């Protein structure tokens, strides 16, 4: 790790001020991606603004037909939250499958979404559920938030405060993990809310999380795994690496989508 200045603000406002003051400063949330990156000297922030001591940034509540989760809420807390398990079990299951138990005890929803790792799990839920990202400055719709690999709509000095998930009628997430990293090789989140069906895919796209129009069209007609029979997803624009070709990823998208639909309907 390179040396950096360390700040532990007590409020979001302080954090934002510090972030504005420190050019090349970075926000430290759970640190489960940022710290390994810094250890390998692949990132060299001049300052870390540590949100772990900031108040009011974590917690889960149901507000009407939305589940609202504070940005510093740990994956483990989302996974085990009675509120989430009851209203949005797909999200609890997704959170319970991120990394491993120790990583889930530290990693946060805000950190995961802000980082927008192309193989992270949360972005698929945010996009499929049409969540709203609430920052210290504004509200951003999921469809506008993710802007390609590791890129988001967040501006300089902008910090995610919470995420609001509309409660769907049916939803589920299925992940096919990379055997080594256990990140998503292909992760598919399906959500049905009224007539609206959204299918978000993580891990597969070379430009980060995306919606599968092919799967969405098939499922909009009838929300059933059989509807995905014969659905072909194009391999163009998908990742190819030593773990999986673009064709294999393309093949896995409807396979995982089917399993997700079955799971969503089983509840």
């Amino acid at each position, binding site marked *: 790790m390179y040396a950096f200045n360390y700040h532990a603000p007590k409020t979001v406002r302080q954090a934002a001020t510090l972030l504005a003051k420190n050019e090349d400063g970075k926000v430290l949330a759970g640190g489960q991606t940022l710290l390994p990156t810094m250890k390998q000297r692949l990132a060299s922030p001049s300052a870390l603004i540590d949100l772990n001591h900031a108040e009011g940034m974590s917690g889960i509540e149901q507000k009407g037909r939305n589940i609202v989760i504070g940005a510093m809420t740990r994956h483990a807390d989302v996974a085990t939250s009675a509120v989430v398990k009851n209203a949005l079990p797909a999200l609890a299951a997704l959170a319970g499958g991120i990394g491993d138990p120790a990583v889930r005890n530290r990693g946060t929803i805000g950190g995961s979404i802000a980082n927008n790792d192309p193989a992270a799990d949360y972005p698929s839920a945010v996009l499929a559920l049409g969540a709203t990202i609430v920052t210290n400055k504004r509200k951003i719709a999921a469809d506008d938030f993710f802007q390609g690999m590791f890129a988001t709509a967040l501006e300089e000095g902008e910090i995610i405060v919470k995420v609001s998930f509309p409660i769907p009628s049916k939803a589920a997430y299925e992940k*096919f993990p990379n055997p*080594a*990293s256990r990140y998503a090789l292909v992760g598919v989140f399906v959500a049905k809310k009224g007539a609206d069906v959204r299918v978000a895919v993580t891990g597969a796209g070379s430009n980060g999380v995306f919606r599968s129009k092919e799967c969405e069209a098939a499922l909009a007609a009838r929300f059933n795994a059989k509807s995905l029979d014969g659905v072909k997803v194009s391999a163009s624009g998908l990742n190819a690496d*030593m773990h999986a070709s673009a064709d*294999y990823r393309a093949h896995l998208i409807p*396979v995982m989508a089917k399993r997700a639909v079955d799971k969503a309907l089983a509840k």
Partner: protein
Amino acid sequence: MSAKTGVGAPVLRKEDFRFITGKGQYTDDINRQDQAHAYFLRSPHAHATIKKLDISAAKSAPGVLGVLTGDDLAADKIGGLICGWMIHNKDGSPMKAGAHPALAQGKVRYVGDHVAVVIADTYAQAKDAAEKIVVDYQVLPAVVDMNKAKSSAAIHDVAPDNVVYDWHLGDKAATDAAFSKAKHVTKIDLVNNRLIPNAMEPRAAIGDFDAGTGVYTLYTTSQNPHVARLVLSAFVGIAPEHKLRVIAPDVGGGFGSKIFIYAEETVCVWASKKVGRPVKWTADRTEAFLSDAHGRDHISHAELALDDKGKILGLRVQTKANLGAYLSTFSSCVPTYLYAPLLSGQYDIPAIYVEVEGIYTTTAPVDAYRGAGRPEATFLVERIIEKAARETGTDPATFRRKNFIKSFPHQTPVIMAYDTGNYTASLDLALEMADYKNFAKRKKDSAKNGKLRGIGFSAYIEACGIAPSAAVGSLGAGVGLWESAEIRVNPVGTVEVLTGSHSHGQGHETTFAQLVADRLGIDIDSVAVVHGDTDKVQFGMGTYGSRSGAVGMSAIVKAVDKVIAKGKKVAAYALEAAEKDIQFKDGRFSVAGTDKSLAFGEVALQAYIAHKFNGQDLEPGLKEGAFYDPTNFTFPSGVHICEVEIDPDTGTTDIVKWTAVDDFGNVINPMIVEGQVHGGIAQGVGQALLEGAHYNADGQLVTASYMDYTMPRADDLPSFDIGMTNTPCTTNPLGIKGCGEAGAIAAPPAVINAITDAVGHEDVPMPATPYAVWQACQKGARKLAAE
């Protein structure tokens, strides 16, 4: 001696207390007064000449005590790292070994090669300063593909075609004759994938020069501290042996990778005098991936000749073995003498001929990794046997049974003389434990659920108890492979066992104590095992090749016998009887036909007070040493059966049942032996399903962290069903064969034979990742459709 702690009992481990309470002392846990820290600047290129190396800015960076390069090594006349086994080419000429300086001297040959070392007050300062070193590289073409190596840029001047050796074994004419009689020939092309050992404790070293005595001390993660001292003294020239102490404290796993003498420990111990402070280095995991010696990495073609009754007539094999950029300590013998002599497997094969080319590439050195040559041989034999059974429409168990060696001793056509075994007994037990007769029903049930089920066999053999010194000497080894032991009996009757073996997970502190306590009839807690320090143990060859039981414990038995013999002399004086009348049994020396006796501890006291005898007739004290040199290898064998279920939609392979039946000869502690089998299978399954080192065309290691190199995790593996048969080894006093590598040797072909059975064709690579198996399923479906 209580039956609960005797030989054959599953005694709980004595060493566990410190490990489960966090009190182990691994090298990185040790801190020397005023120690400095080393950081190695490594080559980012696979192959380059160093046109200019400017260390001036780094030297003046904060905290820096020294920046050392290959020029400094040369100025101090420090020699290069060596390869300790000379292989001769077919024409009798010696192999081509390029120089291996601990820090680059004008050229780098793989990504991770050592360019310079920075030593500073803190590790962070050393790393910061290393970024200030300016290296002007002239990049040369990477040499990654063994098949193209001969026409690629030369890595070492001594080997312009990048061939280290062109070696063979066996009778070519006899084998050609066997093939000319064949009614059926089975052919197979195989890649034995490259692995990265990944002991959980990364390598580490502390060099500590004492200016007062002129003695260097090296703390290091080694499986064989005496071999390290020998190499660093006699060949590298750090200091003569009496001025160099090597300590290998608790070591967190080795699997072969900590046998070798590496650049980092060499540099740390040398640099400790140059900077006048102890110098510590601990690898991070990526450094481990880049610079630990890798394992396996063969490309082979094999042909098996059968007669009209399905009996094997002959085997011929051509193998290319990747040795990496430099010849590591024992690398040259792994694809030759640890490989080819095992190609007879458990089978009566009249004629075998094998050719091996050792190839230089611009990749990390490749050397022994758990099994070392024997897994590669077993993979080849058991894959071609399985394929031959399928091609001839024979049940794979029946095919094996028909061709098993059934009488012993058996001389194979490739050096080895098997002393004993009962391969049919292991097969029968394995078939029963695996419920083989109901497999077809299980396969049908899987098919109903859209899954493909397969079953795979592996009837392996290994050569362990490495090794008879005269035999290995005649084959090119630079050392003898005996082992030493010393038994020091204290006046109160407690015992220290000094051994040249090294324990880094094997549980020697328990099993060696079990043996000695059993033989001397004393409490196991009265026995302490001492190892891993060249100042304490006179000499030893260390732990690898499943040798610590068969060779290390045999040395202990010899020393114990000498202690008992001396004890009889002492007892004779103390009991005023003739030495020939003294008997030793159950911890007591007694006079035959009388009720006069002394306990072992009482005799020990008599030996040290020496009141009852004249020191000129009998020396006081009770301490005996022994060197044991085996007369043959040992030949553990067994049958493993793997049953898999494959999801053809994703290619995921689930191991639903694992049966292991092993014949290790006599067993000291079955709990520890089973643990060795479990761990070996996990590494073998890792090779078959998960692990593979991957260099891209530029020679960059793509799998340089756990993000891309798949380590077996708990949820990748099943629990294992373990069975044992026993034909005691006839060539060592304990009847022990060795168990440390069996699982890693047996497992890969069992897995691949199961997957190829499930998908219906032979084209399944290792590692059989979901992606690879998905492709194989597609091919299988196309094949089925075409039929």
